[in-house]
């Protein structure tokens, strides 16, 4: 059992896992591309439904987590070795290992100090190092990789989403609290990214709850669901009258007519009529959604014939020859997606961690990469170990010359 677990651990910490898994997904992608144009969407759909593909994808975050643990263990072992504590299989923790006859370490220590290395001496070991380790950057990078793949996996397999309009004066859907939307406002934004600031003020649904103000980004959250505004529109009470509709017809409609100029149609069920509505460009240049001064261009179409056309504001009407269209009431609305997705925060976290990892790694790698040597005197033999996270050729040369110096009993000197 222990051997099996060790073998499993070996597989999960292998650097081969991510390229193999990604390669398999690439092949699946290519395979899907032969059958459909919507390849990515199909692959996402397949992965979210197929247990096999989801498990395969799960290898990515698991492998990242395992590597994080494995590399942390290696780092701690190496630190202990550098501190002079006996560590089994110390040679595996370094890039280069060689055994030479035992010699006095004092000469090597003095020479390495002269070359800018910091040294630590115990009774039978000499450790020397320069620069800073990239271990913290590596840990942050692996944590970011874990968060990214875990986030994608969670998002793929558990995302719930539905679309619903948020209408001024109407309550929100019950599963997000149901508070009444008191006001929707749209104002120009001075931000570098967003051009508009959308605010939806929601009254408390129950005593003791606070007022909520929902915005665009970062998306607001209500009872564990993100509110993702998609489009702006107008909720209108549409009334029509026609000679062959003696009782008239009324319907509350969601008009997807924003930005101004966009046309939407309201079908009148059981009749040949259709109302075409366009929100007109404002004459004063102020966004009609912001100002509330909305002028509509309306057309009543019967079959293929245009029977009525005109312009009107909220509360107004257009009529001719027995036909009439009126909007007694209009309200602002925001067509929004309500999304439960626990993967999104993980992916955001991953983005931040990737930036932190890059910020940590780059200066250390370029300016002061870690270089280490460890000499262990053991029963008449000297085990010499070396590793470098950068500038390896120069460090290797010093290491080799240090070995020469030890063997020559201190005759000569290390290269500058």
């Amino acid at each position: 059992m222990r051997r099996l677990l060790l073998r499993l651990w070996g597989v999960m910490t292998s650097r081969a896992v991510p390229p193999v898994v990604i390669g398999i997904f690439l092949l699946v992608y290519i395979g899907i591309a032969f059958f459909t144009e919507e390849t990515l969407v199909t692959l996402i759909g397949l992965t979210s439904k197929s247990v096999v593909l989801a498990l395969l994808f799960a290898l990515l975050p698991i492998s990242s987590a395992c590597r994080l643990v494995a590399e942390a263990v290696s780092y701690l072992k190496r630190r202990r070795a550098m501190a002079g504590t006996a560590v089994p299989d110390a040679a595996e923790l370094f890039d280069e290992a060689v055994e030479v006859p035992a010699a006095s370490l004092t000469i090597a220590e003095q020479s390495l100090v002269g070359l800018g290395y910091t040294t630590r001496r115990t009774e039978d070991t000499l450790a020397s190092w320069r620069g800073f380790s990239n271990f913290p950057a590596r840990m942050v990078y692996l944590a970011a990789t874990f968060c990214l793949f875990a986030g994608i996996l969670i998002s793929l397999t558990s995302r719930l989403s539905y679309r619903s309009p948020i209408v001024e004066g109407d309550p929100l859907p019950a599963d997000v609290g149901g508070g009444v939307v008191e006001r929707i406002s749209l104002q120009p934004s001075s931000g570098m990214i967003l051009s508009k600031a959308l605010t939806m003020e929601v009254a408390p649904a129950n005593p003791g709850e606070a007022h909520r103000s929902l915005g665009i980004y970062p998306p607001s959250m209500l009872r564990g669901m993100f509110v993702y505004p998609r489009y702006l529109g107008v909720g209108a009470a549409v009334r029509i009258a026609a000679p062959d509709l003696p009782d008239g017809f009324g319907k509350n409609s969601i008009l997807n007519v924003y930005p101004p100029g966009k046309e939407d149609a309201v079908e009148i069920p059981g009749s040949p009529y259709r109302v075409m509505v366009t929100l007109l460009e404002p004459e004063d240049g102020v966004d009609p959604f912001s100002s509330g001064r909305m002028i509509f261009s309306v057309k009543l179409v019967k079959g293929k014939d245009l029977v009525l056309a005109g312009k009107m504001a909220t509360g107004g009407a257009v009529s001719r020859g027995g036909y009439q269209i009126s909007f007694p009431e209009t309200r602002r609305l925001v067509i929004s997606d309500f999304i439960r997705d626990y993967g999104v925060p993980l992916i955001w976290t991953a983005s931040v961690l990737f930036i932190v990892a890059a910020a940590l790694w780059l200066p250390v790698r370029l300016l002061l990469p870690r270089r280490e040597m460890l000499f262990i005197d053991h029963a008449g033999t000297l085990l010499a170990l070396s590793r470098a996270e950068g500038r390896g050729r120069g460090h290797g040369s010093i290491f080799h010359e240090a070995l020469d110096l030890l063997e020559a009993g201190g005759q000569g000197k290390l290269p500058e």
Partner: protein
Amino acid sequence: MLSLPYKMIPFLLSWGAMLLVLLRRFSAHRRTAIAAGIVGYACGEAGAWLLFHLYSAEVAVGVMKSAVGVGFLLLWSAAVIAIYRSTGRGFPSWGESVGRTKVFAGGIALAAGVLMGGIVACRLAGTGSGTIACFVAALAAVVLAGAAFVVEEKLPDLFTVSPAGAMAALVSLLLFTSSSIIRLDLFAPLSMKVMKFAHDFVHQFFESMLIPDHLFIRSYLWGYIGLLFGKGVGFWGALAIWFIPVLLILLSVNLERLPPVAHIRQGAKRRKMVAAAIENRRLRLVVPALSCVVFSLAVYRSTFPAVEYWDPKPVPVTAAANGEIVIPKKGEVDLEDGKLHKFLYRQNGNQARFMAVMTPEGKLTVVLDACAICKPDGYGQAEGSVVCYYCKTLIPMDTVGKPGGCNPVPVPFTEKEDGVHLDAVALVNTWTTTVQSTTRVKEEGK
């Protein structure tokens, strides 16, 4: 027919270069490699010839194109393995001993020969050449194999080929030869797939990360995001996919660890060993670097194909008072001559460009000079197909008139004795709906 031998020169030169690489890579099994290569070539040519004669050209070309695509995927795998091996320890060393066996050498040479033979057969089929041309090409390939066998022996030891380098060379030569056959070219369809992927990825990313739509984003920023939806992304993305494997192989050679020398106590000997290893590493860069050049040539041939497309200037047409456009079968143009004919309809500031063509089954069809996916750059006619100028996708002639993908969008029409009849309003509506914001009517033929 006189120009056929001239057109075959790049194919035969590529074949010779492939053999040189194979012989040097498998220098311990030279005879096996050369014999397997020749057998493979003959089998490939014969197999493709049979495919062309037993099935449709589409099937034969599809099989060859898939095979070349698989080769490219294998190169990607080899490149990733090479870079992983060179940048760290602990990567499994599967197959290292297998790679040195006679069977492996023969297998690789056989596969390379099959692919090259198949590509040559596709080229000859495209020119309508017969069995004799195929036989002559096979004979030339055998002669070249003999020459390569002799020449390789005389090449200096400096000509060193690593396993990944050999893979890069073989695949680059296969892609170079296939890129000169428009139906086998991989780069143009790759560009289109990348463009589509970039579009889908950005869309999915925005949706997944709950990023607001263009309605709320500053226009300058949206302008930058819009670059991700352009043709340039397809081209540059495809270039990246095209070159990354060979660049990874170059990098992997450059990053290879130097041999351990800590056990050597003479500094001079150590330095000599390290210098020799560095020199050897540099020599192994030569073949992947040359492959990079061959990959570039393949892109050039794909981007500027040496093919003349039939692309007539659109003929202006008008609608009658009842809104009907009538195009006579035998008028200014002959609609039944099998050639593509383009027309341009203009009225009240609206315009639509469309084409009429007789399909190989003898059916007249009318389609827009635009598809539902790409910018309306239009189509040209090549052998047995039409090509979308925007994404370079080839549409078989027998599928023109059918909707979907990059096919030209069909237009409703009626075929009568006097010609084809179209409704002008339906035509303009179809055009406007299809091209939407990317409308750019091309008035002149290319």
